[in-house]
């Protein structure tokens, strides 16, 4: 891990200070923790009474009510949960596209979301998708202390995610940060991410040259991940076809996200690093002001 990556993480961590991670409604369940959940739990906060049913904890029988009415009733208390977020970052080489701010934006966004999760009391596991999915070393520490995070894998993160999926915590929030320029089927990826998830957020980060390419003429396009080259004649029609192709690709992902109830936003790297205001995430209430 280079100093440059750490700088990007630190930059995102600073940008995430004013935000806290929004808690979706599905996330009001989970392991016992410090946050009040939607279910019945074992906190001290009284919720309701109901009749005893076999299997109920006899420690919660309202003995006073039994003495008065000779009926077995139980006191229900509000559940206290500990929300969790899994941050999955695409570690392939295309995330560090040369002559673009993709690496800065991706790592900065990870730092921002990790900081926002901390502000919201989330536990956070950062994952890096390379040949497989690996927990980032020192991931429990602030992002500026993370180790071994590099955007240099010469392969497709989608196939790695499908082949060796991470052991994600059930009922957690899962955020995937990638350019999604994969040949893998989005539905299969989303099924993995959406399995037992409280919520899934897919953040697509693209460079300006990927959103609106401006090069014309005979071009030798070099795949950043595989190094494969392709000579292509690009004119305005070709650019239009590319735009259509990109839109179609994003629609596939949106459709796959909808199938599992996930959300997807697209951020332009150069725009993000210009102000560090992830407006689409705020609009979808994944980020809120502290």
């Amino acid at each position, binding site marked *: 891990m280079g100093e440059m990556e750490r700088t990007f993480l630190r930059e995102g961590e600073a940008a995430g200070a004013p935000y806290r991670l929004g808690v979706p409604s599905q996330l009001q369940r989970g392991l016992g923790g410090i946050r009040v959940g939607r279910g019945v739990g074992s906190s001290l906060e009284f919720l309701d009474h109901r009749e005893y049913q076999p299997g109920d904890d006899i420690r919660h029988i309202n003995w006073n009510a039994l003495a008065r009415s000779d009926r077995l009733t139980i006191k229900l208390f509000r559940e206290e949960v500990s929300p969790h977020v899994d941050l999955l970052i695409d570690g392939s080489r295309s995330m560090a596209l040369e002559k673009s701010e993709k690496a800065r934006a991706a790592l900065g966004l990870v730092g921002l979301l990790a900081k926002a999760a901390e502000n919201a009391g989330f536990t956070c596991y950062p994952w890096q998708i390379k040949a497989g999915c690996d927990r980032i070393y020192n991931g429990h520490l602030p992002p500026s202390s993370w180790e071994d995070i590099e955007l240099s894998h010469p392969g497709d993160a989608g196939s790695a995610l499908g082949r060796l999926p991470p052991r994600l915590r059930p009922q957690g929030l899962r955020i995937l940060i990638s350019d999604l320029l994969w040949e893998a089927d989005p539905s299969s990826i989303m099924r993995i991410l959406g399995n037992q998830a409280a919520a899934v957020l897919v953040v697509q980060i693209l460079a300006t040259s990927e959103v609106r390419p401006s090069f014309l003429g005979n071009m*030798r396009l070099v*795949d*950043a991940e595989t190094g494969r080259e392709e000579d292509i004649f690009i004119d305005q029609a070709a650019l239009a076809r590319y735009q259509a192709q990109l839109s179609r690709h994003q629609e596939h992902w949106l459709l796959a996200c909808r199938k599992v109830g996930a959300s997807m936003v697209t951020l332009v790297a150069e725009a993000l690093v210009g102000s560090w205001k992830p407006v689409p995430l705020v609009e979808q209430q994944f980020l809120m002001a502290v």
Partner: protein
Amino acid sequence: MALTLTFSAALWGGVAVVASLLGIYFFRTRSKPQTVGSLLLWAEQRRPSEGGRWLQRPQMPLLLALEIMTVVLIALAAASPRGVSSSQAIPLLVVLDDSYSMKAGGDDSARSQGMRAVEKEIVDHPGYQVRLILAGARPEFLGETCRAVVQIKSLWQGWKCGSPVGELDLGIALARETRDFSARILVITDHQPPEGFSDGRMQWWAFGKARPNFAFINAGRTMFGEKDRFFVELANLSSSPMRVGGQVENGSLRPFSLDIAPRDSRREVFDIDSATSPIRVRLPPDDLTIDDEVVLLPPQQRLVKTSVHLGSGPLQGLVERALAATGFIEAASGPADLLIRGDVGIPALPGLSALPALPGLSERPGQWVMEFQPVFGASSFVGPFAIDRESPLAEGLALEGVIWGSTATGTLPGSPVIFLGNVPLLTEERKAQGGRLFRVSYDVGRSNFHNTTNWPIFFWNLVRWRQSLLPGIPQPNLRLGMEAHLQTIPGQPDAKVTAPDGEILMVKSAGEGAVFLPYTPGIHTVENGSEKFAFAVNCLNKKESDLFQSSSGQWGDWTKSENFRQESLDLSWAFLLPAALLLGIHLLLISAAKGGIRP
């Protein structure tokens, strides 16, 4: 059929066009590299039909290949290709430099290389009808017309390269006169052609190489009485000062050493004891060995056997003293080479043209006789005298103030040498086998000619002339390239000349002698009847020994002559037709491309 491009400059135009074409294709279709996150979204894009990565993979666009081939074919057609059938008969006159510098270098000599080059040329062009011309001091043909290398090989032995000069101009002139304009001329030499050489009919092939050389450039041997001396002059024909050692061989070896500056020469004089034997002076052998040895024979002291029969008058003594003063006579004990006779008391009639034969003085073949005619009614005259200056007898005579006593009228047979008005005073008549009869009308009592300096001059001329025509070779030491004059024995016109290398030359005297050209340095022997003579030939020519200006190269181009256009066929059509075909295919492909099919 051998193909020749008579306007090869057009190929450069073709190269320029092809280069421009490639440049245009390269810059127009060159792909700019651009890194993208993934080729996923570009997969359905159209690939360029031209350019691309053919630099990495040899993949040339079809149109470009067609255009290049078309340009190449048009350039070849523009170069005016012409072909000559290998079996077509073409006269080839090979002028061979016969000077001895061609032998410098041994197996690597210009002569050896030239032979190989000529043989290769004949093998490459079987249609040649080759005639060899030796360009020595004077040009001459070598053998007959040849068509095969085998025939040429048999003639090489006649190319001796023994001439002190190579008169290539004369050889070329002979070649031009030999055949019409259709003949090709090939000059084989060891130096470059003269400035401004440009002749479409001729090629000049030089195989020389600049080499340092030490050479004798001058030598001579003289005898003064019993004292014999000779000199040699050596030249350092190199670019650095050198010390050269040699040895004189005259019964014993006598080494010598000389320091000579570059491009300079030194003369050294030697006294020798043995005046009769030949002298050899040798230098260490170098690249050109022919000029590293000098042989000098002793000068010949040939005396004229004379006999004077002029009676008891004063003329006998006058003539004898004049003859003795020359130092080139001896009294004849037998037949005399020069007989001088006159009025010895035998009565003669006026008008008699010749003296009667004297007892014991009958003429023999080739004998010279001078007769003093009896004079009747003589008078003294102071002129006017007329002299035939062409006659060797008249050389140096000055008759102003001379009183000549003779008859005022009458005539003498033979060609007049000295006239008094229209009366001949001295005549010459040629006899058989080189004999000569001189008639003189001279009254010693009425003349003062014998008291003037003309008298010894006259007899000096007579004796020296006679001496020069004695049998043998007057000059015993010749330079290579000089003709040898052989005076044969009267009645023995045939002579056999044996060269140092054993080669025998039979010569026949025509008139008073024979003239031949020796080719080999060294001592030659001549057998003429019962007599044997010898002479030495030495290679003494500074200009020819100087190998500093030798060079190699080829000049001239037969295809540049107008004659080549007549002996060859125009083959431009063979290139233009395929070019037209390719252009048609090109147009077809372009049309197809506009219709949606890209080549």
